[in-house]
C-alpha cells in the first residue's frame, strides 16, 4: 500500500526527449491507467517508477519520500511485462517463488503465498510445467501470479493483455478489477487500448509525445476531452473533428467551415479567422429532429457499415466526412441525401488546441 507521486519527470535518450515534464499523483489503493498511442513514453515512465531506467530530471516519491536513489530491488514494486518475461528455465512454481526467495522469505510464507495466488488465478495444474509448455493466456496468469505473491507496495502493469486474443482480454479485464478490489494495492496500468483503459481505470491519464494531456475518470474524459487529440483518441468510432475558422458577425460568434456556419455560445469571440476545431461524437448525431436546441447539417450518405448491434454511417457534408452511430434498421442507401441533427449541448469546441466550455471566455 502506497501513495505514488511523480514530480516533473523528464527523460532524454541521447538528444531525443521521450518524457517532457510529467507530474502525477496516485493516491493509496488507486487503480490508475496510463493511456496513449504507441511510442508516447508510457513504458519509459513505468520503468522510471520501477527504477529500471533513471530519469533525466525530476523525482519519484513513495509515501512522500523520494526514492530516486533506491535500487529496483528495494522499491518493493512488482511489474507485469508485456511479453510476460517468465524465467524460461524455471517451472511455474519456481517462477512464482523467485521474488520471495530472493527476498529471503521463510519457506512457509512462500508456500502460503503461492497457494493463495494459485487459488486466485486457478493455475494449480500448471505448477510443475515450464513456461514453454503454457499457452499465452496461461503465461499471462503466471506472470500475474508472480506479481501477486510478492504483496508489493505498488503494482506496475505494462500492457499485460495486449498479446491475448479479444475474448481472453475481456475475461482478464474483469479478473484484474476483482484482483484490485480484493488486494487493495495501488496499481499503475499502461495500455494503448482505450477500451481497456475505460473499463479498468478509476482514473485515466492520457499521454501523447511524452506529455500528460488529461487526467480524469473515464466519464470526464469522454464527456469533456481537453484537446482534439484526447477527443479523437477516446470513443469508437472516433469523434468527428471538423476543422474550420472562427468568424464574427455583429457580435455573434460563428464556427465556419465550407457552407456550414454554427453559432457559438461564447461570450467574447477570438479574432476572426482563428482556426478552430468542432468535435461531434458519432453517437450524438441523430437522423430525426428533436425538441432540444440543435444544429442540422445536410449531406449525402457515402457508405454504411452494419455491425449487428450498431450501424456506422459515413456522411459526406460540406466537404467533410462525418461518421455517425445509430441503431440498425435504417433504410438509407449510399448516395441518398440525408439531414443530420446534433444537440447543441453535445458540441465540443477547441480553439488553439484547448477545449472551450460554453459561455467561457477563450
Amino acid at each position, binding site marked *: 500500500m502506497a501513495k505514488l507521486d511523480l514530480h516533473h519527470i523528464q527523460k532524454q535518450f541521447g538528444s531525443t526527449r521521450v518524457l517532457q515534464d510529467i507530474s502525477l499523483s496516485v493516491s493509496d489503493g488507486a487503480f490508475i491507467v496510463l493511456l496513449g498511442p504507441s511510442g508516447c513514453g508510457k513504458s519509459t515512465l513505468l*520503468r522510471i517508477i*520501477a*527504477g*529500471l531506467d533513471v530519469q533525466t530530471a525530476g523525482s519519484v516519491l513513495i509515501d512522500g519520500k523520494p526514492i530516486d536513489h533506491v*535500487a*529496483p*530491488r528495494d*522499491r518493493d*514494486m*512488482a*511489474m507485469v*511485462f*508485456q*511479453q*510476460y*518475461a*517468465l*524465467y*524460461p*528455465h524455471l517451472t511455474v512454481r519456481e517462477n512464482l517463488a*523467485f*521474488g520471495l526467495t*530472493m*527476498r529471503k522469505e521463510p519457506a512457509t510464507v512462500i508456500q502460503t503465498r503461492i497457494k493463495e495466488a494459485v487459488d486466485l488465478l486457478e493455475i494449480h495444474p500448471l505448477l510443475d510445467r*515450464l*513456461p*514453454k*509448455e*503454457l499457452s*499465452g493466456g496461461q*503465461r499471462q496468469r503466471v506472470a500475474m501470479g*508472480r506479481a501477486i505473491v*510478492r504483496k508489493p507496495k505498488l503494482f506496475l502493469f505494462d500492457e499485460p493483455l495486449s*498479446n491475448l486474443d479479444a475474448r481472453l482480454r475481456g475475461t482478464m479485464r474483469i479478473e484484474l478489477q476483482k484482483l484490485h478490489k480484493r488486494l487493495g494495492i495501488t496499481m499503475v496500468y499502461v495500455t494503448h487500448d482505450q477500451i481497456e483503459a475505460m473499463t479498468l481505470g478509476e482514473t485515466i491519464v492520457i499521454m501523447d509525445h511524452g506529455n500528460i494531456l488529461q487526467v480524469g475518470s473515464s466519464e470526464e474524459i469522454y464527456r469533456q476531452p481537453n484537446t482534439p487529440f484526447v477527443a479523437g483518441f477516446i470513443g469508437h468510432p472516433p469523434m468527428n473533428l471538423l476543422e474550420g475558422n472562427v468568424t464574427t458577425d455583429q457580435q455573434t460568434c460563428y464556427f465556419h467551415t465550407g457552407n456550414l456556419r454554427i453559432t457559438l455560445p461564447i461570450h467574447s469571440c477570438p479574432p476572426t479567422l482563428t482556426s478552430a476545431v468542432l468535435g461531434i461524437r458519432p453517437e450524438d448525431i441523430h437522423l430525426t429532429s428533436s425538441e432540444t436546441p440543435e444544429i442540422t447539417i445536410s449531406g449525402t450518405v457515402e457508405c454504411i457499415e452494419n455491425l449487428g448491434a450498431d450501424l456506422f454511417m459515413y456522411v459526406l457534408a460540406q466537404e467533410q466526412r462525418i461518421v455517425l452511430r445509430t441503431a440498425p434498421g435504417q433504410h438509407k442507401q449510399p448516395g441518398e441525401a440525408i439531414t443530420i441533427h446534433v444537440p447543441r449541448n453535445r458540441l465540443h469546441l477547441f480553439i488553439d488546441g484547448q477545449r472551450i466550455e460554453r459561455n467561457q471566455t477563450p
Partner: protein
Amino acid sequence: MKKPFLECSLLHVGIILSVIISLVPFFWFIITSLKSQTAVEAIPPTWWPNGNLDAYRSALLDHQLLNYMMNSVIVAGSTTIIALLLAIPAAYALARVRMKGKSLILGGLLSMSMFPQIVIAGPVWEILKHIGGLNTHWGLVLPYLTLTLPLAIWILATFFKELPRELEDAARVDGCTLWQTMSKVMAPLAAPGIFTAAILTFIYAWNEFFFALLILTDPEQQTLPVGIALFQGEFTMPWGELAAASVLATLPLVLVVLLFQRGIISGLSAGAIKG
C-alpha cells in the same frame, strides 16, 4: 509422412562418410598405440593390434607424459576461465548497450579471430622476453587469450542478444542484484553460448602448437602438443609411444566436450516471451 528413399539414403551416406573420414586417423593411431615396436614397423602393415601396452607404459614413464598433461591442464584451463571471465561482461555490454559503431566492433572482433598467428609471433616473443614471460605458463596464457577472446566475445554477444531484456528487468524488480541477475537468470539461459565458447577456447588452448613451441623451450614447462612432438627415440621414431601419447592427450578433450555438452540444452529460452 515418409521422406523419399533417395533423399534419406543420401543423408545416411553423407553422415557415414563424414564419420569415417574424421574417425579413421583416430582409429589408426589407437591401433598403432596397441602394437609392439616390430608390429608398428612391419611392412605391409598389420591391421590387427597385438594388444601390447608397452607404448603406453613408455609414454607415461620414459617420456613424462603426465607432466606435459599437467602443464596443458593448467594452461588450457586458465585460458578458458580467464577468457570467459573477460568475455562474458564484454559480450553482455556489446549485446545490451545502445551505442554507435557496435556492429563495427563486432565485425572487427570476428575478423581479428581470423588473423594468421605468424603475424603476431615475433612481437609476442619480444614482449614476453621483455616482461619475463618466456618459459612460463602465464606467458603462454597471455597470447592464447589474445587469440581466443575475440571469438569467445563474438559467440557470447550473439547469444546474449537473443535473450529478452524484459527478463533482466523482471529479475531486478524481483529483488536481484546485478550479480544475481547475471548468475540466476542470464547465465543459465546463456549456458549454451557459454559452453560453446568454453569448449572452443579449451580445445584451442589444448591443441595449440606453434606459440607453445616458441615460448616454452624448457621441457619442464612444455604442453602436450610440444612435448609429444619432441619425443625422442634411440634409433628410430617412437611411433608407438607417439600414438599412445596422442590417445591419452585426446581423452581429456573428449571428456570435456561430453561434459559440457550436457549443459547445452538448446531452445531453453523458448517460452520466456510470447510465441
